[in-house]
Structures are given as structure tokens and as C-alpha cells.
């Protein structure tokens, strides 16, 4: 029976090729536009570290200007920490993973004379950085706590850096000259691109991770330059690098891993106590305003999903609505032209259910064809987005299986929506009425 209905549907398409084509095209365009924008939004708002995003907390303390808040409305604490807080909070070691961080950069001078010196970004962090953020290694490991404390000149290379400098071979144990100093390679990362780059969203939430990773205190040891964002409400007292580190300038980030709500409360209490102690030393002139946000809360707070992406998504949903209205109208017109045929079929014994099934097959076929074409259009749309936005959105414009499933569901839903009412109308044609006029 199903095959027969399918055949009837195809006959009907053949009788009205332009109308059918128009319906399929309308659904395809609506689905294509919606899927393109949904995909970009989905990837932008994705959870970069799903297995533990609710246990990783970004640390904020309000060390800002007594006269003007970092943000006035709402009154949120600064988005980064000073060197003083980063080092003090790390030193007050609690029994969980924690890492303060900073971004820097330096010139790498490869031994191989064929490779020109080049500038590379550096992530300064503590040894917990790698296990905390589930960073994958291709060769070797991260450094240990002793390396942190001893300020050892060790470095972990990103996969790209290792490919560039060492041709992709296992470089663990080799030396590399960075910032004019010799470092020992201790590990090489596997491909790693958290989206968003949640641990530091300051220079674009979808930036590439850094090229080099090294112990945090080397910042002070080697006087490594400040990359990322530096913000000061008060200029450093005195001149020079150490004065900057002792200043109220913020350039550092910190994350802690807390497994339970209880742990979180304990840590927050610790933070509040810390700030109160600092107040006694004459720092932290603002009211107590410390905050621990987990990964997704922090991504939300930092508004990593671009406004434009959201605007486009809502506009494309409306676009889909127009396309569906279009299809419903055309479908209705098509069925109404068939009312004589339907009346006849009813008169010779077809039940409403029979007709309902038959026309559902017909509208379903249109919907699926539209959905499939829409998926192709979405692929095309994503190519277009990649082209328009360049490398900054490259990783954010690809379809994964979730998105393909969503597309198919959406098209099924759309075609049912578009087909249900016309089908219902067609089934309710009284058998006699249409025969009379003949």
C-alpha cells in the first residue's frame, strides 16, 4: 500500500512539477538557512570540556578602584587577577588542582638553520594545568610541582610548534632556544583546540591555544612580556618589571577544580577570608565581591556567543516560518485542485484514514526531499560562512552528527507542519459535494 501511495505521490509531483519544485525549494532554503545558523550557534555555545565543566571554576576577586567598579552594571569583579593574587592564592595551596595563568610570547630560535626564528605565544601555567583541562599529549608529559617551585626551564610544545621546529618527531629531552635561553622539551601536545578556548577568552574566545607552555614563575624569572589584556586602575608604584608585578594591574587568570558544592563553598569562604586579610593591609578598597563561576557560567558571563550569530539564527528561524507558510499555501492549493478526485475516491469507498495516509506520504516525501536538499544548502552555507569570516570561524562552521540529526528532525517537523493542515482539509471533503458539480 505504501509503495502504491508513493507512486501516487510521484504521479502527483509529475502533474505539478513547478509547484512541487517550489515547495521542495522553499523547505530546502528554510532548512538550509536555519541549519547554517544553528550550527554556528551550537558550536559557539558548545561545552569545551563536558566531562568536568561544572567542576572547574574561574576565580575572581574585586581588587578594583574604590571610585569606579570594573563593571558598574551589574557590579562584577574584574575578569583577571593581579600577580599578587595569582601567586598568593596559588601559595595557599589547597588539596585540589589549581592553576594561575598568564599569556606571553617570545622568539623561538630553532637549531636548524633552515628554519627562521619566529615569534610564538606562551601560556605560563602551573603543573595542574594539563590534568585539570584534560590536555592530550602526543609525547612526554607536563612538568611536576617541583618544576613549578624550582622555576625549571622546561617547556611543553604544541603539536604545531613541534611539527615546525622538530619536524613532528619525538622531541622530548631535546633543547630549544626561547627568549634567548635554552629550554628542555618535556612534552608535546597532541592536536588540542578547545572551543571556545575557555581557559582564557581575553583575545577572542575562538583563538588557537598557545604554541608553548611553561612554568608560571618564569614570568618573573625571565621578565617575560605581558600578552593578552593588561588593565590597571592605578599605575604601578615605581618603575620596572617588578613594580609592575607588585601593582594593581590585572593580567593573570586562575582556575580551580572543586568537586562538590561543599568544596566550592569552602573555597569561596577561603577567598573571602583572604580578601579580608588583604583589606587589613590596605588593599581591596571595594566591598567584598568575589566570584567562582564554572566553565559554562563563565562562557555565558563573557558572552562568547557573538551577538551577530544569535541575530542571524533568529532571523533564519523567521525565514523558515515564511518558507513553511509558503509550502502550506501551495500544498493547500494543490490539494484543493484535487477535490473532485478526492470526492470520487471517497464515494467509491476510500476511508478518511486511507486518504490521510496517502497524502501524508505525499507531503512527507516533499518534506524529506526538502530536508535533504536543505542539508546540502547548509553545507554550502557553512562554506560561505568560513569564506566570509576567514580563519576566525574555521572550526565553528562544520556539521557534526548531532547537527545532521537535528537537520533531519527539523525537516521532518517542518514538513509535517506544512503537510498536516492541507492533508486534514483534503480528507474532510464530503464525497457527494464534489460529484454534484460534475
Amino acid at each position, binding site marked *: 500500500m505504501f509503495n502504491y501511495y508513493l507512486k501516487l505521490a510521484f504521479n502527483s509531483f509529475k502533474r505539478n512539477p513547478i509547484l512541487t519544485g517550489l515547495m521542495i525549494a522553499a523547505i530546502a532554503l528554510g532548512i538550509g538557512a536555519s541549519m547554517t545558523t544553528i550550527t554556528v550557534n551550537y558550536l559557539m555555545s558548545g561545552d569545551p570540556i563536558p566531562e568536568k565543566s561544572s567542576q572547574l571554576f574561574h576565580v575572581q576577586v574585586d581588587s578594583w578602584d574604590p571610585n569606579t567598579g570594573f563593571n558598574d552594571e551589574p557590579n562584577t569583579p574584574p575578569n583577571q587577577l593581579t600577580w599578587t593574587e595569582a601567586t598568593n592564592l596559588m601559595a595557599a595551596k589547597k588539596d585540589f588542582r589549581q592553576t594561575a595563568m598568564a599569556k606571553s610570547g617570545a*622568539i623561538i630560535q630553532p637549531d636548524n638553520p633552515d628554519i627562521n*626564528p619566529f*615569534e610564538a605565544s606562551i601560556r605560563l601555567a602551573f603543573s595542574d594545568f594539563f590534568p585539570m583541562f584534560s590536555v592530550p599529549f602526543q609525547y612526554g608529559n607536563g612538568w611536576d610541582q617541583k618544576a613549578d617551585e624550582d622555576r625549571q626551564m622546561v617547556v611543553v610544545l604544541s603539536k604545531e610548534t613541534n611539527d615546525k621546529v622538530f619536524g613532528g618527531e619525538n622531541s622530548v629531552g631535546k633543547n630549544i632556544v626561547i627568549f634567548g635561553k635554552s629550554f628542555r622539551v618535556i612534552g608535546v601536545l597532541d592536536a588540542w583546540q578547545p572551543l571556545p578556548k575557555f581557559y582564557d577568552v581575553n583575545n577572542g574566545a575562538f583563538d588557537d591555544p598557545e604554541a608553548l607552555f611553561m612554568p608560571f614563575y618564569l614570568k618573573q624569572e625571565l621578565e617575560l612580556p605581558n600578552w593578552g589584556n593588561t588593565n590597571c586602575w592605578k599605575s604601578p608604584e615605581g*618603575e620596572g618589571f617588578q613594580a609592575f608585578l607588585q601593582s594593581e594591574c590585572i593580567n593573570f587568570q586562575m582556575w580551580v577544580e572543586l568537586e562538590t558544592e561543599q568544596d566550592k563553598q569552602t573555597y569561596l569562604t577561603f577567598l573571602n577570608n583572604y580578601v579580608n586579610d588583604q583589606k587589613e593591609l590596605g588593599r581591596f578598597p571595594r566591598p567584598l565581591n568575589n566570584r567562582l563561576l564554572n566553565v559554562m557560567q563563565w562562557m555565558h558571563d563573557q558572552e562568547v556567543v557573538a551577538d551577530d550569530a544569535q541575530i542571524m539564527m533568529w532571523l533564519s528561524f523567521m525565514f523558515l516560518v*515564511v518558507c513553511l507558510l509558503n509550502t502550506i499555501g501551495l500544498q493547500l492549493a494543490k490539494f484543493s485542485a484535487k477535490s473532485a478526485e478526492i470526492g470520487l475516491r471517497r464515494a467509491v469507498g476510500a476511508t478518511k484514514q486511507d486518504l490521510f495516509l496517502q497524502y501524508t506520504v505525499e507531503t512527507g516525501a516533499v518534506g524529506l526531499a526538502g530536508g535533504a536538499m536543505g542539508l546540502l544548502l547548509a553545507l554550502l552555507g557553512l562554506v560561505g560562512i568560513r569564506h566570509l569570516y576567514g580563519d576566525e570561524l574555521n572550526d565553528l562552521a562544520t556539521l557534526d552528527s548531532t547537527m545532521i540529526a537535528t537537520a533531519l528532525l527539523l525537516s521532518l517537523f517542518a514538513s509535517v507542519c506544512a503537510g498536516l493542515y492541507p492533508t486534514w482539509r483534503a480528507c474532510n471533503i464530503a464525497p457527494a459535494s464534489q460529484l454534484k458539480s460534475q
Partner: protein
Amino acid sequence: MNEQKERSFFAENWEVGPILRALLRNKVGAILIALQIAFTMTIVVNAIYIIHERSEKMKRPSGIDEANSFYLSSVGFTNDFNTLVTTKKDLNLIRSLEGVVDAIQINAVPMSNSGWSMGLQTQPGAEFDGTGSAVYMVDEHALNTLDVALVAGENFRATDIQTRVASQNHWPDKVIITLAMANRLFPDDGLGALGKTVYINDIEPMIITGIIDKLQAPWVGWDNVENVMLTPEIRDAETSRYFIRTKPGQRDRIMSEVESLLAKSNTGRILRDMRSIDETRVRAYRDNSAMIRILVTVMVILVIVTGLGIVGLASFSVNQRKKQIGTRRALGASQQAIVRYFMLENLLISTVGVVLGAMLTVGLNIVLVDAFSLDPITWYYIPLGMLALWVVGQLAVYGPAKKAANIPPALATRSA
């Protein structure tokens, strides 16, 4: 006589009554078209508004000679690398090149999205708020290189230029600011800012020795993008950025020449990020231009879909009513009367659509303003949008209406 003729013009020829009655019998079809028109209008008008807003933003001049300027950075890495000596040598070399107008060392570049800002205030003391301003650290060649003009005061002199070391936090005692910045600091009399003292770092005084016409900060998304100050400094840090202005048409040649000359002159450094201002502008506004292109595409497709939908439905209704049309023709209706019938029918439906569309447009705009802090829409976009969709509807229905008019009266006599 005349009066009667006019009344009949409305009462008989325009057939609004019969059209309405016919429409009421097929409400759903008409409602669907009206809704389609309403949503299309909502999207199109809001999209056009966003496009307009973005392109206005993109049109703002940066103040510099965009077509003939570029920049690059030199980063020293050897232990004996001397930034100051190298910078002075490099600048002399570049300035002497045929085709170069002038060159400077600068810490940041307009539209490059990365730079330095400080607050300036008219009264000393931490309790007073400063006005944020981008800082460009430059020498006396800056005005010529950046192609900015003094509207008051004078340029820096060579003797004003101080050396700035890394992590230094005191400032020179002279500053040149933009007119926009002057107006913000001294709202009553911007030009009167000349010679006044302003304070940086809460208490450190600087004298305004010059006011320039226009120069943008590095951040194009910043509300106060024209708040800029120039300070007379040469930086002694590992990285030295050069900004070079060439004679018209010479930029690309000079770019490659400068790169190879500098690379040869000192091997203890790398050169990076060489970029023309044209390219910098493209990068700075890439999101905006992408948004504009996407919205234009969506709008065009949407109007086509809606138009084709109207064509499809109208053709259908013509086919359905073939016999009635034939009968009307046989009873004496002219071809124009048939065309007019369908056009008018569409006009009535469109009117419902655009009125609804106007409400939805405002509604969507309110949502966008609220959620994404866009500006509220200017009122005349609404009537223009209504007019545009009326036209689209009329154009779409004209073909099928014309076809209907060609139905021969004899059709009435044939059986269906």
C-alpha cells in the same frame, strides 16, 4: 453627470465587494499569503536597518592615508640587540627611500584592534574620573606620516621626544590630542583646550600643545573611537613597530623593498605582521561585512521565495477559476477588468500583510534593541518597507493575472 460617472468608477469597476466576499470564502489561502508578507517584511526591514547601521560604521574614516600606508614590526632576539640604535637606523633608511613620504615608530595602529589606552582628566586626583583615550607614542614625523592636520597648536619638536623603556609609568609633559578628545575633555570649548593642563595617572600633568583634526583609536568597536592622544616618545622594547606612508601607487613596491632591506640590515631580529592599512581595514570590519553579505543574501532569497509563492498561488487560483473567468469575459468583462481583479485581490491581501508586518517589524526591533543593544529603527523604514512589499506582491501577481485575462470567453461554454 460627472458626479455619477465617478461614483460608478468606485462602485462598479473596482469590484472591491465581490473580491472581499470571494476572499472570505477562501480565508486560509489569503491568510497564509498575508502572513508570509508580514514575516517577509519583518525580516527584510530589520535586515536593511542592520545593514545600514553596519555600513555607516564601516564608512567612518580612520584619519590616516589608508591607501598608501602600511606597517610592520621588528622584534630583536639576540642578546646584543639594541632597539634604540636599530630603530633610528631603520627609520633613517626607510625615510630615505624613493617613494616614501615619511615613517615613524608607533606603538599601535588605527583599526588594528590592539593598542594602549590611558585616562586623561582635567583635575588632578584619584577621585576624579578620567576620559579614556588611545595612546600613540610617536616622534615629530607623526603628523606627516599619519596624514593628520593640526587645527591648533604645534607639532612636537625633535627635542621633545623621550625614550620610553619597558614598564615605565611616567609620561612626557607634552601631548597632542584629537579635536574629538578636546571636545570631550572641555565640552564648552574644545579648541580652547590648547595650552591647558590635563592629568594622566590621576596626578601627572601634561600640557596640550596641539590639537589634530581626526585620528581613530585601534579599536573600531569602541564607542569613543576618536578619543586619541599622541605622546612624544620612542620606545625601547624588544618590539618596534614602524608605520610607513608612501607616495600614491608606491605602497606595494615599498612594502617588499622595506622588508628585504630591514631583513638584510640586521639579522638579530625578525620582521613580522607586515600589513597594509587596506588589509587592516578589511580585517577590522570583516564581521560587519560578513553580516551585511549574509543579510543581503537572506533578503534576496526571501523576497524571491515569497514572490514565487504568490505567483504559485495566484496561478492556481486562476486555474481553479478558469470557468468563472470565461463566464465573466463572456458576460462582457474586459481583459483589464480581469487583470484588475487579481491585482486588487492581491493588494487587499498585501495590505493586511504589511499592516501586520509593520507591527511585527517594530516588535522584532524592540527585541533586537533589548537583547543585542542595537539602535531603535528609524520610523521611515516602516512605510518604505510596506511600500516595497506592496510592489513585490503586485509584480508577482501580474503574470498570473495577465494569463487569466487571456482566458477566452468561449471557455464558459465548455464543460469542465
